[in-house]
């Protein structure tokens, strides 16, 4: 029975000891230890979170880069295509223009040639006419200077011109 009867003294000292121990340990041990553990856990959590964020940023960056690269590539493609088209168009345009110009030149040349030709022909005609006149003048002059011949001619012509 003695064993299960609590002593007043021990009750008192246990209570006092426990309260003193609780207050003291709380101050000198639990608070600093738990504080250190908590702040360490906090810093680990933060480090992990920031690592995760950095990883995500990295991923974003990579996707961004890829996107930009893709866009750049597409742009280059487009530009090249445009350039090609432009080149073809320019060549075609140039060809057309050249053709038009050439045609025009040819037409002009032809008309000029035509005009020149006409002028030349007209000139030639005039020259021929004047030459013919001169020749005719000379011939007539010469013919007329020789009386015998004139007579002969008249005679011949008269001989030919048989009166029917």
């Amino acid at each position, binding site marked *: *029975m*003695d*064993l*299960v*009867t*609590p*002593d*007043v*003294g*021990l*009750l*008192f*000292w*246990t*209570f006092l*000891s*426990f309260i*003193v*121990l*609780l207050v*003291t*340990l*709380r101050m*000198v*041990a*639990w*608070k*600093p*230890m*738990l504080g*250190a*553990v908590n*702040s*360490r856990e906090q*810093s680990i959590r933060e480090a992990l979170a920031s690592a995760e964020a950095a990883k995500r940023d990295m991923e974003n960056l990579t996707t961004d880069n890829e996107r930009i690269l893709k866009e750049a590539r597409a742009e280059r493609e487009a530009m090249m295509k445009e350039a090609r088209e432009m080149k073809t168009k320019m060549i075609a345009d140039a060809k057309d223009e050249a053709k038009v110009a050439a045609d025009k030149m040819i037409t002009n040349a032809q008309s000029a040639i035509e005009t020149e030709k006409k002028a030349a022909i007209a000139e030639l005609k005039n020259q021929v006419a004047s030459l013919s006149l001169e020749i005719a003048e000379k011939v007539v002059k010469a013919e007329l200077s020789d009386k015998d011949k004139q007579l002969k001619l008249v005679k011949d012509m008269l001989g030919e011109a048989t009166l029917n």
Partner: protein
Amino acid sequence: MKTTNFNLIRSLILGVFFILVANPAIAASPEPEGDSEFNVTDMIMHHIKDAHDFHIMDWDGHAISIPLPVILWTNNGLVTFMSSEFQHDDTGTVVVEKNGQRFVKYHEEIYYASEAPHGATAEKPSEGVHHEAEKPLDFSITKLVFSMFLSMVLLLLIFGLSARKYDANGVPKGIAKFTEPLVVFIRDEVAIPNIGEKNYKRFLPFLLTLFFFIWINNVMGLIPFFPFSANLSGNIAFTLVLAIITFVITTFVANKDYWKHIFWMPGLPVPMKIFLAPIEFMGIFIKPISLMIRLFANITAGHIIVLSLISLIFIAQSEWAAIPAVVFSVFISIIEVLVVAIQAYIFTLLSALYIGSAMEEHEHEH
């Protein structure tokens, strides 16, 4: 090689068993009643109970012990003297006179000499030990109180030192490497799962102090030499105080739901509610009482077993009995190392559980 070792161990155990069975002295477990030579029950009882001086050993028939201060609150006020003034007497024979009052010590209780239940000089002797004699209130620094103070010093040293062993980055060094996992264990395995993430911080210092206070006193009780070996955590007063503290905390932090679940259990038919209310109400008290008895009984039982095994040597009165006695008591002591840690853990765990259940918020009726 291994098999031979195993066989050796097996034959040893078998041999011990046969010695136990064959030896009539042990098998009959005689109670040497009135034997002045060696009384096992007295020895064990004396060990597991409190004492006013710290007995270290007997040398040449003379007890060597550390005297401890006796502090008494008597009818005439406070009286203090050293326990050595009783001259190791525990039979109520030696009378100490202080402040005009006379005291005797009988079975580690201090009585007024005129009220002592037994003893040669007792002026009013009575027959029974259980006589309700008038006693002064005894606030002595007894063996257990001394042991408790020692455990406080050790705890403050261990954990005060641990708290200083953190470097600037909060990384533990030295002893903190050992103590921190224990602290974190109590936090993560006891406080948080039972009390919950929201409230556990308020009770963590209490739970930590409780766990380490019980554990260190349990372990100190297992160490069989001065200044340890006191059976503090196997004393009902010690466990009673701790259980009461848990009870008081549980009762004070309890919310409306807790009381509702005790007196008017929701979700049950009315007759069941009426039937359950007294049971639940008793449960409020049974919980801390079970805490108290569990720790007290486990630790006391451990001490009794180890001492009984050692006593086998004296019961058998043969040096050969020392072999099984020592083997068994070492075996039990090793188990006890586990048991004392588990008991400290269980006490803390259940305290956390009771506190947690008192604060639990029931979101739905069940």
